[in-house]
Every structure is written in structure tokens, then in C-alpha cells.
């Protein structure tokens, strides 16, 4: 079955991203397809490549990135809401250039896009599961 996920909360401040990750892993292990994970509201903070937790703690950002990188199909697509990201100072290279600022912090396994990607995930997937507040 084709499943997509929406995450509305950032890492380390709310359980949403951890629950969603364990759910996604269990779904993949059971042979289901996680088509897209859409990071919305404070959930965009799950995409920061500068996240450096202590060594004995899980790295939430890398966990998501590895799910994407390890799968040759490029799924799950990790999509960050552009409006939510920009107002929180989360930029990829293209947005940094466009806005005339130096540096960027979106992990390369994630991509910035619009709310249409969430709607499309809802249409193309059999299920959409929302995590967060």
C-alpha cells in the first residue's frame, strides 16, 4: 500500500518525528511504500543538516535522510514546505541565492517545495497519516 506522512513538529521537542519515523520503518519492513514525507510548520526543522545531537542520541535528521538515500527509488521523498521553511530560516542553496544570503542549511536528502506537494501526496497515496500538534 502507498502511504504518505505529514509531520508538523520539530525534532527533540515533540515525539511526532520519532513516532513518524518508527511508523515509516515498520511500514517499509512490512512491504508498504512510503511515497512522501511532508514537513510542515515546525516540522521543517527536521531538515537541518546542522543538527548535531550528542553521540549517544539518535540523529533524527540523518535517520530520515538515510531512509531516502538507502532506497534507490528515491522514496520516501522528503519534502519541506517552502513558506514554513523560509520564515524559520531554513534555506537550501537556491533559496539562499534568491534571497541574497550566505549559507544554507537544508540537508541534501530533503527538498523544498510547496503545499501542492502535500495535496498531491494525499491524492496519489492510499493513506495520509499526520503526526504532531
Amino acid at each position: 500500500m502507498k502511504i504518505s506522512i505529514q509531520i508538523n513538529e520539530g525534532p527533540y521537542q515533540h515525539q511526532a518525528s520519532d513516532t513518524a519515523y518508527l511508523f515509516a520503518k515498520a511500514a517499509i519492513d512490512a512491504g508498504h511504500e512510503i511515497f512522501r514525507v511532508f514537513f510542515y510548520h515546525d516540522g521543517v526543522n527536521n531538515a537541518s543538516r546542522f543538527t548535531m545531537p550528542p553521540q549517544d542520541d539518535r540523529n533524527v535528521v540523518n535517520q530520515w535522510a538515510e531512509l531516502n538515500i538507502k532506497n534507490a527509488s528515491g522514496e520516501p521523498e522528503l519534502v519541506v514546505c517552502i513558506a514554513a521553511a523560509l520564515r524559520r530560516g531554513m534555506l537550501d542553496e537556491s533559496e539562499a541565492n534568491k534571497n541574497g544570503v550566505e549559507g544554507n542549511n537544508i540537508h541534501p536528502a530533503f527538498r523544498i517545495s510547496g503545499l501542492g506537494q502535500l495535496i498531491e501526496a494525499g491524492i496519489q497515496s492510499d493513506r495520509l497519516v499526520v503526526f504532531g500538534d
Partner: protein
Amino acid sequence: MLHTVNKSSFERNSLQSCLNTIDDTSVILLIEDGVISAANNANSSMLSDLATQGRVYALQGDVDARGISSKVADNIKLVDYAGFVDLVVEHGTAVSWV
């Protein structure tokens, strides 16, 4: 439908809102702080009624993490993440009450 509730009923009224609107075939999965409502002494009568019908589940890991394993009402079914996935697959649209 599958309704997930992730807040304790001591914190928010999302479980009550869910119970007020749920239809006769839907099931509830308690996750995160929502599992607090699975404890015997926190149980509402509406939730107990649904549990009697076998329509209430709680996420085992979250129950264990909060130290209430021994208090979970007998007719509330504990599931792991694989069980969570099965509930999403079996029950159609998933609604998250937050």
C-alpha cells in the same frame, strides 16, 4: 476510519472530541501521551464502552515509556509499530486528533 489521539485527556480534550464524533465502525489508537487515557483510573466511560467492543488500541512502546503497563485496561489492545501500520491499512482514512 482510524482515529489516533496523541494527547492525555488531562492535557487536552481531543480524546473527548474524538469520542463525540466517532461512528459505529471506527477504531481509536492511543499514541504518545494519548496512552495515559488507557490506564484504568484515567478511563472515561465512553472510552470503556468502545474498549468493550474491541475498538480501542494503544501503542505498546508509549505505554511502556510512561510506566503504565500494569494499569492498562484489559480490553484495550496493545500494538507495536507494525500493528499501527496494520491498523492504518485495515481502517481506511486515518484522522489525527491533536
